[in-house]
């Protein structure tokens, strides 16, 4: 801790705004650079520095005044419910764009190690996405901000309190004039209450909301169409036909889990003969939704409006006159219109939130005409606190420009990086006399602020937030804050200095009025509150559906579609780092992106024909120019990309993300425009003549004609249940057959339901202590993921079919790997598992050479030994951390099998179905993975394996894989077959 300055000395620095009008003194910035200028450090060096930072963390938590005991004493009496070696689970939530993602957090002796979905929560029913799974690593990120900083120097919360007191005095005098708050989307009732309170106390203060991705245009469309602030929810579980116009329903985002769950239940029902599940997609750039679609039309983003109008014209929904369509568009629209028409009230037209509000409005009208409102498209009051006119970032910029902003509090936002570059927000920001940044990281914005206050991670703080359906979800800490951090609620409470400043009390205060209404005496209220905490959410708080009347006609004319000549740019959040907020998460950086299988980098996606025209190959650096801006990015020839559309991904090119994320990729915000956030026209793209190596995990796009991905038409499936897919009768074997008994652990993976979302990959990584190896190693083919998702294209590259295929270990009954090992390090275990004995392995790698599926991973270097203490804290104590020179692979989460079997033995009963759930199955938002005992005909996995769609991968080799697949089902007309 630095010596405390006399209060006056440092208070004066911000009380004299004119001194600072020119921005932070260079020296302060230099100090920041010194403290955080770690982008030069190698990623391996990160790990070394981590050790030092933990020491700091330990010091800070020792001195935490909120700890009632103050000293650490080993257990004398074992705490109630705390059984060493037995994990405890807490229901809480992680946040994405302010929306609660309900989770259960597994903790071992006070360390959160793994995140699961909350199966009781109405959203997602236990499914997760990659961001949720990775939140636990973010908690332990050694680059997280650990102390208060003032002008680049370490300060204390005492300093903050003093500064706030002074600020409060000034604001009380002026009624809050000059105070502005900037946050992301706010769904938290507590935060909303605090903002209201702040507004009430200082009426002149203003709150601004800014989400770099968000869905501002969706809100505008809803307001224009219905004349009210609303939120739209897709009920995919009820939608027999979905026509998605540039809407990535199944793609990453706050609603991914909910949509995936809904779509999967509809898909299952449809295969069981209950109605249909048809997905028709028109989109400029390939998405997971497009990959799952029965018909997909690649079309420029600017043509989506024309398609919507054409649909509206065919379905007599009003609006603009039917536009001129190409033959392909015409056919697609005709098919979509027919499908929509035939499914009145159970169809859905979903227009992407990236599309102009007028186009989205056409979609809303179409749903109204088709009777889908209230059925598949549910409207509610807004879930997030609405950002009214004058509350957006543009208004804030204007206010700064006119000198109306004296104090700016930035709560968990990073506009220096995420604001469109033409707004020159960093320069504007430096005109604000007093700037305070509250965030998890001392990021780009923190570097330009006088104060940086470290924020607690959601997993270590009290809070509340609404899930995407509005259900109030409670956040409770799963660990004491690792560093001297406060939650956003606590910071606001500190600023307001009213009521409690402790997180729990603040949140509880919000709900006290409700609790008063729900129960009478305090004991009952406490019991109720505890039940909410146990469940992780407050039941029946989902927002009620509303049936508002139409308030207007769709626009009569849409903006002109571009000519064939111009190139358009569309922006998309990155599937792995979103808007850049996850850039410092090594798991997510190393996660292969669903379609490109690219890691540690970002690309500009170009279509095959554009690439051919411009002589561009994957990996070539291209200069993308739009208006006055331009940037250089590696090109990626992306099959299925609309012909003249270039996709740029947000979230990379960070300069102060931390040691993992800084300096990776290009920054697409440099080209983005406030008025055209998602689409730019008349862009140009030209090869710059050089190329860069890209680290991908899959180099071949097709199955090369082998029957790896199999499909069956729904018609065939329904006509003849025995139609698919066993190759030849099983060959005889000299060796004893498995299963020899009960249980026979086995897995079945439904390729038809796999949307390629990657949740399982990160879940596996978190559960099994799978190390991160870095870009160079991935480029060298040394990624360590035990579970990979193969992506295969079939058909023409202009518009191919796309299939995802998760590949864990096959646990072959006749395992080729076991024959090869000279030291018995990979052997067949009880239950038919192909087991890996790490401490016996001498690393001949014969097992991997012999493995036809290449699912084995080798520790080429010591990938684990030099990990920081924080990152070590994440590790699952039930799973061995592997040493250098040792082979590893998927174990079917043997530690979970073992835990269940111990429990069953204690209770003298067999292991029940569903008692062992491997991490991948648990994470899957569509339940595409099923695990269980195949020796018992009653288990779900046995039922899956009875399916006529079942097939084994490379079955002809006689490996008898325990992991089998269910063939993909094609609905509608088959697309390009391989």
């Amino acid at each position, binding site marked *: 801790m630095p010596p405390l300055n006399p209060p006056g000395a440092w208070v004066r620095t911000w009380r004299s705004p004119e001194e600072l009008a020119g921005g932070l003194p260079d020296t302060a910035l230099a100090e920041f650079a010194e403290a955080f200028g770690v982008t030069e450090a190698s990623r391996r060096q990160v790990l070394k520095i981590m050790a030092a930072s933990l020491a700091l963390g330990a010091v800070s938590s020792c001195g935490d005044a909120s700890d009632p005991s103050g000293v650490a004493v080993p257990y004398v009496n074992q705490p109630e419910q705390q059984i060493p070696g037995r994990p405890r689970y807490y229901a809480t939530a992680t946040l994405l764009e302010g929306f609660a993602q309900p989770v259960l957090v597994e903790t071992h002796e006070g360390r959160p190690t793994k995140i699961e979905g909350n199966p009781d929560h109405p959203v997602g029913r236990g499914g997760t996405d990659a961001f949720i799974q990775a939140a636990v690593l973010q908690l332990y990120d050694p680059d997280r901000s650990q102390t208060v900083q003032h002008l680049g120097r370490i300060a204390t919360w005492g300093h903050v309190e003093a500064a706030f007191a002074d600020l409060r005095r000034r604001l009380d005098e002026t009624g809050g004039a000059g105070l502005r708050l900037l946050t992301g989307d706010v769904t938290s009732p507590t935060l909303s209450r605090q903002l209201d309170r702040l507004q009430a106390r200082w009426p002149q203060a203003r709150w601004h909301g800014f989400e770099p991705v968000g869905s501002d245009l969706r809100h505008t469309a809803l307001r224009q169409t219905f004349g009210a602030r609303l939120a739209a929810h897709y009920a995919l579980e009820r939608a027999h036909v979905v026509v998605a116009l540039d809407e990535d329903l199944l793609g990453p985002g706050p609603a991914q889990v909910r949509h995936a769950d809904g779509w999967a239940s509809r898909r299952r029902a449809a295969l069981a003969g209950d109605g249909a599940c048809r997905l028709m997609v028109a989109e400029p750039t390939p998405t997971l939704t497009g990959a799952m679609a029965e018909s997909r039309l690649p079309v420029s983003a600017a043509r989506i409006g024309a398609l919507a109008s054409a649909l509206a014209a065919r379905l007599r929904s009003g609006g603009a006159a039917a536009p001129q369509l190409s033959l392909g568009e015409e056919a697609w629209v005709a098919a979509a219109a027919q499908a929509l028409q035939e499914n009145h009230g159970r169809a859905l037209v979903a227009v992407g939130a990236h599309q102009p509000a007028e186009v989205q409005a056409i979609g809303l009208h179409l749903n109204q005409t088709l009777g889908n409102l209230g059925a598949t498209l549910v409207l509610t009051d807004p879930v997030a606190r609405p950002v009214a006119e004058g509350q957006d970032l543009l208004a804030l910029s204007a206010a700064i420009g006119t000198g109306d902003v004296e104090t700016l509090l930035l709560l968990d936002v990073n506009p220096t990086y995420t604001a469109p570059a033409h707004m020159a927000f960093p320069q504007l920001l430096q005109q604000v006399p007093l700037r305070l940044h509250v965030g998890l990281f001392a990021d780009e914005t923190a570097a330009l602020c006088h104060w940086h206050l470290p924020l607690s991670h959601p997993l270590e703080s009290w809070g509340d937030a609404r899930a995407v359906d509005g259900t109030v979800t409670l956040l409770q800490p799963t660990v004491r804050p690792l560093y001297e951090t406060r939650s956003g609620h606590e910071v606001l409470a500190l600023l307001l200095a009213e009521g409690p400043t402790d997180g729990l009390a603040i949140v509880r205060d919000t709900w006290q009025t409700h609790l008063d209404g729900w129960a009478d005496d305090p004991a009952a209220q406490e019991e109720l509150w505890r039940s909410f905490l146990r469940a992780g959410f407050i039941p029946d708080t989902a927002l009620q559906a509303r049936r508002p009347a139409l308030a207007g006609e769709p626009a009569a004319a849409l903006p002109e579609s571009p000519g064939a000549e111009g190139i358009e740019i569309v922006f998309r959040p990155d599937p792995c780092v979103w808007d850049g907020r996850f850039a410092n998460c090594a798991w997510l950086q190393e996660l292969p992106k669903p379609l490109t299988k690219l890691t540690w980098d970002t690309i500009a996606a170009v279509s095959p024909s554009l690439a051919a025209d411009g002589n561009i190959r994957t990996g070539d650096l291209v200069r993308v120019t739009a208006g006055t801006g331009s940037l250089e990015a590696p090109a990626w020839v992306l099959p299925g990309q609309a012909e003249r559309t270039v996709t740029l991904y947000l979230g990379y090119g960070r300069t102060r993300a931390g040691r993992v994320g800084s300096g990776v990729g290009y920054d697409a915000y440099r080209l983005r425009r406030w008025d055209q956030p998602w689409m730019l026209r008349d862009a140009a793209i030209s090869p710059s003549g050089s190329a860069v190596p890209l680290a991908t995990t899959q180099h071949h796009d097709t199955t090369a004609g082998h029957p*790896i991905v199999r499909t069956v038409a729904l018609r065939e499936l329904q006509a003849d249940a025995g139609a698919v897919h066993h190759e030849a009768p099983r060959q005889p074997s000299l060796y004893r057959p498995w299963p020899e008994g009960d249980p026979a652990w086995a897995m079945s993976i439904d390729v038809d339901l796999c949307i390629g979302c990657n949740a399982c990959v990160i879940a596996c990584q978190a559960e099994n202590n799978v190390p991160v190896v870095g870009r160079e190693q991935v480029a060298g083919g*040394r990624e360590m993921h035990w579970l990979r998702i193969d992506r295969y294209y079939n058909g023409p590259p202009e518009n191919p079919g796309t299939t995802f295929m998760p590949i864990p270990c096959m646990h072959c009954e006749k395992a080729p790997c076991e024959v090869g090992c000279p030291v018995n390090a990979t052997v067949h275990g009880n239950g038919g598992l192909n087991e890996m004995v790490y401490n016996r392995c*001498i690393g*001949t790698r014969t097992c991997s050479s012999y493995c036809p599926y290449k699912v084995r991973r080798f520790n080429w270097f010591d990938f684990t030994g030099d990990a920081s203490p924080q990152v070590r804290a994440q590790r699952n104590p039930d799973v061995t951390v592997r040493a250098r020179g040792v082979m590893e692979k998927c174990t079917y989460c043997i530690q979970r099998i073992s835990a269940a079997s111990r429990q069953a033995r204690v209770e003298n009963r067999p292991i029940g179905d569903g008692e062992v759930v491997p991490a991948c199955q648990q994470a899957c938002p569509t339940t595409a993975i099923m695990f269980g005992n195949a020796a018992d005909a009653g288990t779900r996995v046995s039922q899956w394996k009875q399916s006529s769609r079942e097939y084994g991968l490379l079955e002809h080799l006689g490996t008898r894989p325990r992991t089998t697949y269910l063939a993909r089902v094609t609905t509608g007309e088959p697309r390009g077959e391989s």
Partner: protein
Amino acid sequence: MPPADAPAIQHPMGRRPIVPVRSFASINEQITAITLHPPYLRNWWIGILISGALTGLLVLSIGWLFIRGGGVWGINIPVNWSLAIINYVWWIAIGSAGTLISALLLVLEEPWRNSLNRFAEAMTVFAVICAGIFPIIHLGRPFFFLWLFPYPNVLGVWPQFKSPLEWDVFAVPVYLVVSVLFWYLGLIPDMASLRDRATARWAQVFYGLLALGWRGSVTHWARWRRVYRLIAILGVPLVISVHSGVALLYAVGQIPGWHSTIFPPFFIIGAVFNGFAVVAMIAVVLRHAFGLDQLVTLRHLDILGMVLLATGVAVGYCYVMEAFTAWYSGDLYERQTLWDRAVGIYAWSYWGAIACNVGSIQVLWWPAARRSPWILFAVGAITTVGMWLERFMLQTTPLYQDFLPSSYGVYWPSFWEYSTLLGSIGLFFFLFLLFVRFLPMISIFEVAEVVKDERRSQAEGGR
């Protein structure tokens, strides 16, 4: 004494003499002089320094590997076997010829072996030593290599005897032990010769100890001959077992391009081919360097050339059959591997192997070429490179694209792999230079035996 290229005299086998007839003493003198009064000592020192430096590179490469881990090589998933295994197979193949020349031809009583067997055996021992390094440094955790051996241990775990690697664990050390024994046994009478002719004290002691008290009594000779023959008979099947074991290392895996029953004979033939190529090279060099053309005659080179040609043609047959089988199987994956070999990114290794191993030997159909030392040397060098390329091709092309296209990947050896290969070649030369300096590189008494036979047959022919 007739010149080496004198017209053929009548011989029971219809041959010219293998070694020109001369006095036993002159043979003894010439060979022991190389050891006791070494010529070209300056060149020898240059050679030993260069090869010593390369051996240092080997130590450095292995040291770096042990410090940093297997990742310093270019291997990955799917190609997780590196040059280490390729070099191992290559070296062990080179090591086959010594045993074959010495043991098989001893048993078959082919007298022409007697000028070649000593340095061929030395080559075998050194090549097996070079080969033996690689399986150990190939391991992810080399310090646990002893787990490969079945010894009573507290872990209570035995090796896994179904693994072809385990078969190698038995085959290679046994082969090494038998090769060393055979070599040393053959050296004993010559050690006695050196001991008796040495003037320096250290040499008398050194060779005296190695001679094990050999006095050349008839009893000694009788016992010695019995043991020598016995070990020779043991050695021949070991050549088969070692190279079958090496082949099965690949063939047991279900990888297309590996999973083939042709592999064991294919590897044995390749090994003999490669081994003879290196013997031919060494013979040419030694003959030239030490003026041994009266001991290693053009007749020897002619025979070596013929063996090279015969085994090379057999190797060519294996290439054809391998390709034919892949095509004829109808298996898509096998055919794809064949295709990858022919036109994939490693096609240079496939066509290089064919050009070197099948193409270059065609020149040996001409007797003049076989009897031209430097053409034979060139063919030997080309085929040695070719066999390395063949090992590379056989190991890498099936692995880099096996079954699932999603796991295809490429492999390029890293600097440290090449430096290890170069270092192992350095080690080989280092050991070989020590051998030519301190031990008789040609078997004195066995050449004398040949000369005795030649004398007798001349006498018979002249009668």
